[in-house]
């Protein structure tokens, strides 16, 4: 399969602190790539850099061969990157429907599946029930669904998911996981950052482990799951 997203020798700084150094990463088209690592390993920084929220100092980021680095977040979104950020970052003063309306963009590329507002609401029926509700008054789980729905409404070619299960009740985590599985089945390319390791390993086709801003290991989820030393060393899981 061709690479949907590729990062080559990417360096990202927070001020003078190098958070990601020389990152080499590829995400295959139609696959889920899980980006794993301890806190501070550079996972969220990587996603923010791909989405254009943080600038890169060096390196190249390509979306289906077209360079993204140096472009603004809005241009990167229009090129086909959808971001579900850590902490959801929904807009409290907008209703559910307004989130989808301002995000919706007809796809300019051959998308595997086109998401219009009705399509997004069909994926998360709970949002259809709450379409007139202010997002700031919704539960954490509903806000997470909205954050995913909002990103899908931009009709991305690659979806960046940053901690989609963070702080959610187990039942909601299962709903979010089902939605991600459905998106994967629909052929969407996904780069997933997730601390919930069983969930990440279940959804992922490929795992990349970051440590101190560099790739420490990459391979299949089964290999990682069956190697306790690797899990303990890089992820702190015993």
């Amino acid at each position, binding site marked *: 399969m061709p690479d949907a997203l590729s990062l080559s020798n990417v360096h990202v700084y927070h001020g003078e602190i190098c958070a990601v150094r020389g990152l080499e990463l590829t995400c295959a088209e139609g696959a889920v790539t899980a980006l794993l690592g301890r806190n501070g390993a550079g996972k969220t920084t990587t996603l923010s850099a791909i*989405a*254009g*929220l943080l600038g890169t100092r060096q390196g190249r980021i390509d979306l289906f061969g077209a360079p993204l680095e140096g472009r*603004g*977040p*809005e241009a*990167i*979104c*229009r090129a086909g990157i959808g*971001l579900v*950020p850590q902490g959801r*970052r929904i*807009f*409290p*003063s*907008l209703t559910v429907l*307004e*989130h989808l*309306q*301002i*995000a919706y*963009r007809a796809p300019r590329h051959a998308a595997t599946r086109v998401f219009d507002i009705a399509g997004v609401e069909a994926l998360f029926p709970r949002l259809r029930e709450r379409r007139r509700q202010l997002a700031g008054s919704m539960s954490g789980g509903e806000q997470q669904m909205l954050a995913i729905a*909002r*990103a899908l*409404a*931009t009709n991305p070619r690659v979806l960046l998911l940053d901690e989609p299960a963070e702080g959610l009740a187990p039942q909601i985590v299962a709903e979010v996981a089902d939605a991600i599985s459905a998106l994967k089945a629909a052929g969407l390319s996904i780069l997933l950052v997730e601390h919930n390791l069983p969930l990440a390993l279940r959804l992922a086709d490929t795992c990349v482990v970051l440590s101190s801003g560099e790739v420490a290991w990459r391979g299949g989820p089964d290999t990682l799951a069956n190697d306790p030393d690797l899990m303990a060393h890089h992820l702190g899981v015993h």
Partner: protein
Amino acid sequence: MAFWVSQTLNALALGGLLFMLASGFSLIFGLMRVANLAHGALFMLGAYVGLALVKAGFGFWTAAATTAVLVGVLGGVIERTLLRHLAGRTLPQVLLTLGLAFIIADACLMTWGGDPMRLPPPPELAGAVRFGDVVFPRYRLFVIFASAAVALGLWLLVERTRAGAMIRAAVDDVGMARAIGVSASTLFTAVFCLGTALAGLGGVIGGPILSVYPSLDQDMLPLALLVVILGGAGSLAGAFVGAYIIGFIYTFGQVLVPDLAYVILFLPMVAVLAVAPQGLFGRRLG
């Protein structure tokens, strides 16, 4: 009784004018975090340009509409060419907009001289209306309704349109709004144009009440700042409520206790800042 009714109507008219001035300031600050200290000067420039157009033979309404467009375009140029390069740098923004305020004020002084001038109201709104014992200028009544209409129009724009939802999203979290494809650059310019056009329009509409004189900007800007601090930056509802509160306090303060007018004007601001620093309708800034 006539006194109270008459002063209440005066307060409503001043509140309406303050809303036109402060709503633009508040939207700009809420969206871009730019305290545009040239906003009062743009209000005054609007009054002078409107007066010049009326003197040149244009009708009042044509002059008002043209002035709003001209001042709005000037605002857009200021945003694109000057403020754009200072994004996120508060002190340079304050110095720049303050400098622009001085430049505009001096340019007005140079062009139109230092004498106060009267901008005549449109002939159809000249004269007064009588309700029982109360005699009230017809034009001031128009200002009350016109500012309410502007408030309604702005509310519909911000709360009921996709563009308005984009503005609110960017006020909430501009980075995230950009990450879902909202063009912050276009939005910033559009809101700056809109805010400054409202200031210019407010200047023309306010001209027949306030008259047009060189320090009009210095009289209006502090009132606009009070409105925004009281109501909460970025909140249209806050600007609306704040404008009428300040309109009432200022009007009745000037009439009842003129020596303490500024004290009772600034006291509510101090109280609000102490209790709710984000203002009555503002959100706590992250």
